[in-house]
């Protein structure tokens, strides 16, 4: 079995003057929801067989995200790096990731793609389902529980939605996204950190993947950010210490401000 973990981009939480997400933050942390995806992938191959490829797309320091994958136990790391990708919307990013997965699949068949549930940055939760649609494989998003039957070659997830919980099942190959309920991510050990140093990160460009640059980045985007500004701080804030009448004052605040 070959599992791809797709950290959709490490989170750096500001928008720059070009109204794009600032991604040169230096700390290069992995999107923490993707740690659940890595954990799920590594646990699956530990339980049966196969290998994990950690895959990311993003600027130079996105490589830290896949290096983290190697430290935790992935066997291979792939980073799609191309200036033309900057400014992509969710669908453009999905297009790049889907092309990279197809590229890897041609080398060794990919049975399961695992992603985090959503980027903690400006990207949306559209990404996992869009990748599956582009790959033409079934999508089982938001897994709180994930089981793979390697013999029957099926995957089953339980997911909790706003009004219902569901169990979905599909044949492999497939894509799942996992939530933070799915597992407790491990920390890299010294051995893993040392071993990861010996594994080179494969860097691929859009040309390597055969992706037309005009279909990604700002030219390929179907949405355009017009304005972006940090939300102004809240004004006229009140903080009181309870001296016996705080409950009454709280009630008065709610009623006076017509909040209830």
């Amino acid at each position, binding site marked *: 079995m070959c599992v791809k973990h797709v950290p959709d981009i490490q989170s750096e939480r500001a928008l720059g003057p070009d109204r794009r997400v600032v991604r040169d933050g230096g700390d290069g942390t992995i999107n923490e929801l993707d740690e659940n995806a890595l954990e799920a992938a590594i646990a699956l191959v530990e339980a049966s067989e196969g290998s994990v490829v950690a895959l990311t797309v993003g600027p130079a320091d996105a490589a830290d995200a896949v290096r983290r994958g190697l430290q935790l136990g992935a066997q291979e790391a792939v980073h799609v790096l191309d200036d033309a990708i900057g400014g992509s919307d969710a669908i453009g990013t999905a297009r790049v990731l889907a092309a990279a997965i197809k590229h890897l699949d041609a080398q060794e068949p990919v049975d399961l793609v695992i992603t985090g549930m959503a980027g903690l940055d400006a990207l949306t939760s559209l990404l996992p389902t869009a990748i599956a649609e582009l790959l033409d494989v079934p999508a089982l998003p938001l897994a709180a529980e994930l089981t793979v039957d390697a013999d029957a070659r099926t995957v089953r997830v339980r997911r909790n939605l706003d009004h219902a919980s569901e169990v979905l099942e599909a044949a492999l190959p497939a894509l799942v996204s996992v939530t933070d309920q799915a597992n407790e991510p491990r920390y890299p050990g010294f051995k893993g950190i040392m071993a990861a140093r010996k594994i080179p990160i494969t860097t691929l460009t859009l040309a390597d993947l055969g992706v037309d640059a005009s279909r990604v980045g700002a030219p390929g985007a179907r949405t355009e950010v017009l304005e972006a500004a940090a939300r102004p701080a809240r004004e006229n804030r009140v903080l009181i210490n309870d001296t016996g009448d705080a409950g009454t004052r709280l009630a008065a605040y709610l009623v006076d401000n017509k*909040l209830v």
Partner: protein
Amino acid sequence: MTVAAPVLVLLDHTETGALRAPVRELLTLARGLAGSAPVHAAWPLDGIEPSASVIDDVASLGATHMHRLSADGDLHLSAVLAEALASLLDATGAGLLLLESSFENKEAAARLAVSTGAGVITDADTLSLVDGRFVAAKTVFAGTWNTTCAITAPLAIVTVKPNSVVVSTIAPTTPVVTDHAVAVSEKARRVTLVERVVRPESGRPDLGSAAVVVAGGRGTEGDFSLVEELADVIGGAVGATRVATDEGWIGHDAQIGQTGVTIAPKLYVGVGVSGAVHHRGGMQASGTIVAINSDPDAPIFEIADFGVVGDLFTVLPQAVAELRRLKG
């Protein structure tokens, strides 16, 4: 000069056939954006018929056409829903599809973006037509940044956050009610819905769309009775922090946060909530934030409009009694 295009609205409904509250906001929004063009409403016919009163309600909100949408697959599956909606978009010539911001609808939107080339904006707070383009305002980075985005593709799909639009009605006309049955592809049936268990309605407003939310955290020490009492006095939904749900004090579906339910009610009251980053990510776009916590250094006070440093077990009963008195 812009020519308004028809708008299609998905009518999410409960298992008992009632419209979900945010759908009424979507219809109000659609009516304003469609101008003189038709507003098409799609009722997923998953075994539940739209009642006469629902059709009246939808008409009074401005829908001119009501489509009873059915498919030869389960419409709860996003692949089936996406193909059914694509067919209806085609049939109606709609230039805009409005959806409630739910996980399932965002999955369908992602598929439609790929299959139709539509531009998608999720979790919009507002939506307007500017120089012929749909422009949405939305918050990003867990409610800490405000952005406006334009859709540059000919077809726009927007999921709208609850509590974004003030619902208004018009003198209803009789909508054209038609059946729209869709034969989906084999590919849409590749995922099997093995089980779907609908959560019982609590009798309180829905957490994701409530205008008022009372949330309990570690400080409740597992006793949610005061949280529930306050919620009931002010007509709010009950939510919780990850600690409270992990401890089993309340179900996981009550978890507010980046990985749970994201809320933006007009009023949020945090009871014994410290305001960890994860929780704040799911609630800091709320209109007014009230917090009660015994720890003056709790991070929730950094964003609270009205904060009380005190013991919730004395502050809350007093507040509840006073609210009952003031509201008579």
